[in-house]
């Protein structure tokens, strides 16, 4: 067990293409360090966003991004073979770790979920791009630690194709593109999405159906 976990750590570090940062992150995630300071940072940023601080949203995104990456790394390091990252679970766990169970305002949830959706999109797309590059011989030598980067290539390619189509979609249908990010990348339910976007659940469902048809047509075209 110890041996296989160590190998997974290395795979994560190399996968992330960093100079040692990944190992530190995994260790922090495993031993729960620095949780309380991140929690206060996130709540400070949520309050600043509410107060109209234009830079606070970007800073919240950075905090949420770091936390989601830490959680993803610890999940992949500790869970049994066959496990995959579940965006929904990661986002909800990040909420508990960063904001806690203090009664959040409605707007806090909206800001947090929007930041989470964008952070998950960046994490998943960066990962898929790195794997894509490796498969096509660029960058690094291929690494197959414990089968870590053998996650189905088709899944990565679809992820990259969806992301590309989504950029075009956002230019014409920005609200619906936000809905796709919240549902697909952050794994929110129709009910949660409708709260974040301030629309009814039935409208959220209609937007989702329209968005899927639009994106499929774009990707096939």
């Amino acid at each position, binding site marked *: 067990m110890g041996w296989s976990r160590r190998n*997974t750590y290395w795979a994560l570090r190399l*996968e992330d293409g960093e100079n040692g940062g990944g190992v530190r992150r995994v260790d922090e995630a495993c031993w729960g360090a620095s949780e309380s300071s991140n929690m206060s940072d996130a709540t400070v940023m949520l309050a600043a966003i509410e107060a109209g601080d234009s830079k606070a949203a970007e800073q919240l995104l950075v905090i949420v991004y770091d936390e989601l990456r830490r959680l*993803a790394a610890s999940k*992949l390091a500790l*869970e*049994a*073979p*066959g*496990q*995959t*990252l*579940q*965006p*929904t679970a990661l986002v909800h766990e990040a909420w508990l770790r960063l904001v806690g169970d203090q009664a959040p305002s409605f707007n806090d949830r909206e800001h947090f979920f929007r930041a989470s959706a964008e952070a998950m999109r960046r*994490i*998943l797309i960066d*990962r*898929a791009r790195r794997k894509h590059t490796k498969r096509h011989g660029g960058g690094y030598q291929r690494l197959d630690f*414990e*089968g*870590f*980067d*053998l*996650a*189905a290539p088709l*899944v990565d390619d*679809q*992820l990259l194709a*969806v992301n590309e189509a989504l950029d075009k979609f956002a230019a*014409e*249908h920005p609200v*619906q593109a936000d809905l*796709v990010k919240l*549902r*697909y*990348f952050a*794994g929110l339910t129709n009910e949660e999405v409708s709260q974040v976007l301030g629309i009814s659940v039935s409208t959220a469902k*209609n*937007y989702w*159906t*329209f968005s*899927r*048809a*639009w*994106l*499929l*047509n774009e990707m*096939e075209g």
Partner: protein
Amino acid sequence: MKGDPGRELVVFTEALKVPVQERAAFLERTCAGDENLRHKVETLLSAHDRLGDFLEEPPTGASVE
């Protein structure tokens, strides 16, 4: 309202509520000569028929196999 992307969404959503055999007549009536809109909605309705579980599964960015 011509060229308004929101129109595409509204007509598509309404068309889905109409029985399949009545959709052509519905689009004829609703698009009222706006061939661009009608073509867009017809294309989307066709894509809708092929959706399956497209995007319903969360993306798995990495897995331990």
